[in-house]
């Protein structure tokens, strides 16, 4: 599948943004994070900024963005429509929670309820994003049991590493949060390795024989219907060399998991300004690594239409 930058950026940014929003909604709403104005403003600005930038980027990917409002109508059958509804609906409790926590400096009563609702909305939105990909049968690497947990865990992972960077930056960090961010990073790493292992051993029942209805023997593509690449090949026929794939997997592991984990471990031991710097660096490295991971998620996914072209 063609790794369009708008979609790669969208899933990475909204994943981190919703992860951060969910954690802020629960932890700040329950009084675990002090209602400091600048901390709150930076945190809510970061999470809603990432979410909004991601959503705008995905809208830019549309052929007719001016009709995007129509995408809220088919929530009964379409995961993409459900994602649209959930993402917009989440802005309501998130906005109320932001006003209550940041502007009014409150963490009790309706502010706590709004925080919880924002967290529920964030998790629901990430689920719908994951299901868009997990529900696509023609792409075996996505139509697997790893896709939805992947979206959820990566969202929690990037969100917690961001929250840790935020709190460390305001000298309000805790070892508990550092440990959680480290644990989630390790969990994400494990899941990614398991996903790659599963995809590399994937044996799909669909082949050139079932695609053409010609049973038995071998079916070899002799001639394409066109001489140049068409929409199908540009969009779904994207191929990546095995050596590049191996190298990019290493870069993903280094940037998204190994380096952030080391920097988080270092933050345990370092005094304040250095622990903050280390935490912020870990968040930046992880987001860069996740962009590579998401690029590979698309580049390594193979659509069944490529079988018609002998690929």
């Amino acid at each position, binding site marked *: *599948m063609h790794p369009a930058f708008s979609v790669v950026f969208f899933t990475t940014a909204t994943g981190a943004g919703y992860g951060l929003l969910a954690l802020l909604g629960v932890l700040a709403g329950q009084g675990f994070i002090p209602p400091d104005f600048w901390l709150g403003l930076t945190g809510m600005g970061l999470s809603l900024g990432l979410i909004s930038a991601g959503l705008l980027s995905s809208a830019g*990917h*549309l*052929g*007719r*963005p001016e*009709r*995007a409002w*129509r*995408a*809220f*109508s*088919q929530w*009964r*059958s*379409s*995961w*993409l*429509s459900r994602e*649209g509804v959930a993402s917009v609906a989440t802005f309501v409790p998130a906005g109320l929670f932001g006003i209550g926590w940041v502007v009014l400096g409150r963490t009790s009563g309706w502010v706590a309820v709004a925080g919880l609702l924002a967290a529920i909305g964030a998790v629901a939105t990430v689920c719908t994003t994951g299901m*868009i990909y997990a*529900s*696509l*049968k*023609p*792409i075996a690497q996505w139509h697997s049991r790893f896709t939805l947990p992947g979206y959820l865990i990566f969202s929690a992972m990037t969100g917690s590493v961001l929250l840790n960077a935020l709190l460390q930056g305001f000298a309000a960090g805790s070892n508990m949060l550092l440990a959680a961010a480290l644990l989630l990073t390790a969990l994400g790493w494990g899941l990614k390795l398991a996903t790659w292992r599963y995809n590399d051993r994937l044996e799909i*029942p*669909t082949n*050139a024989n*079932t*695609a*053409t*209805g*010609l*049973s*038995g*023997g*071998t*079916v*070899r*593509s*002799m*001639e*394409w*219907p*066109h*001489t*140049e*690449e*068409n*929409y*199908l090949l540009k*969009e*779904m026929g994207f191929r990546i060399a095995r050596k590049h794939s191996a190298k990019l997997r290493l870069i993903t592991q280094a940037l998204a998991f190994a380096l952030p984990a080391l920097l988080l471990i270092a933050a345990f031991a370092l005094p304040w300004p250095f622990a903050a710097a280390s935490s912020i660096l870990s968040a930046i490295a992880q987001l860069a690594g996740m962009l590579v991971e998401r690029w590979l998620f698309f580049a390594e996914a193979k*659509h*069944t*239409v490529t079988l*018609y*072209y002998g690929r």
Partner: protein
Amino acid sequence: MTCLPAHTDKKLGLVIDLDTCVGCQACVTACKEWNTGGHMAPLTDIDPYGGNVDGVWFNRVHSYEHMTEMGGRTVNFPRSCLHCETPACVTVCPTGASYKRASDGIVLVDEDKCIGCKLCSWACPYGAREFDTDVGVMKKCTLCVDRIYNDNLAEEDRVPACVAACPTSARHFGDLGDPASAISQLVAERGGVDLMPEMGYRPTNKYLPPRAHTNRAASVPAQALQPMRAEGGFLGWVDRMLSN
């Protein structure tokens, strides 16, 4: 609405005979010619005379080499929308632009509602949908809805353009939901198959596999040349002179 109809009154579709298709591309050009002025018009071409030709087509003919223990053969393979009974291209559509008609089962796109998110083309395992980068919407085979119900055409012309154009009658059109229809009988007789049945999309269109190889050709050799009866006259004289 992108929820699928529980039942369609008819299951209109195509049956394609892989035994007789000669890969002449007549169906491809006839389709393009009709549909670039039809329901989903235009079928945009980008840089048609340049080095990076691209464009929207509803029907594409591939050629394959099928090798079995009985030998090899060339199979020409037209690929277009199969108007599936459970088309995920419809259910994934967020806007309601894609729909399956309850009356005849045809899968269509309402161009005025399409936002061009391309998700339907990802959901189709067969590559039936092609994005029009110029208009910004998705396009696909309409089974020539603007021909098959068109009272302005003579009755024999009320078939999809590809079917009308096929010089070897490799393409057949009809109601595959009616077991008594000529097209259903043909599928039953020739053992028509679904493409990628394991995907579970339940395509309406069926493909007739090439007939089995036979040894008939080898068992009927041409007659050996026979000596000619001696002729009289001038030609006979020439023949005698040359034979000496």
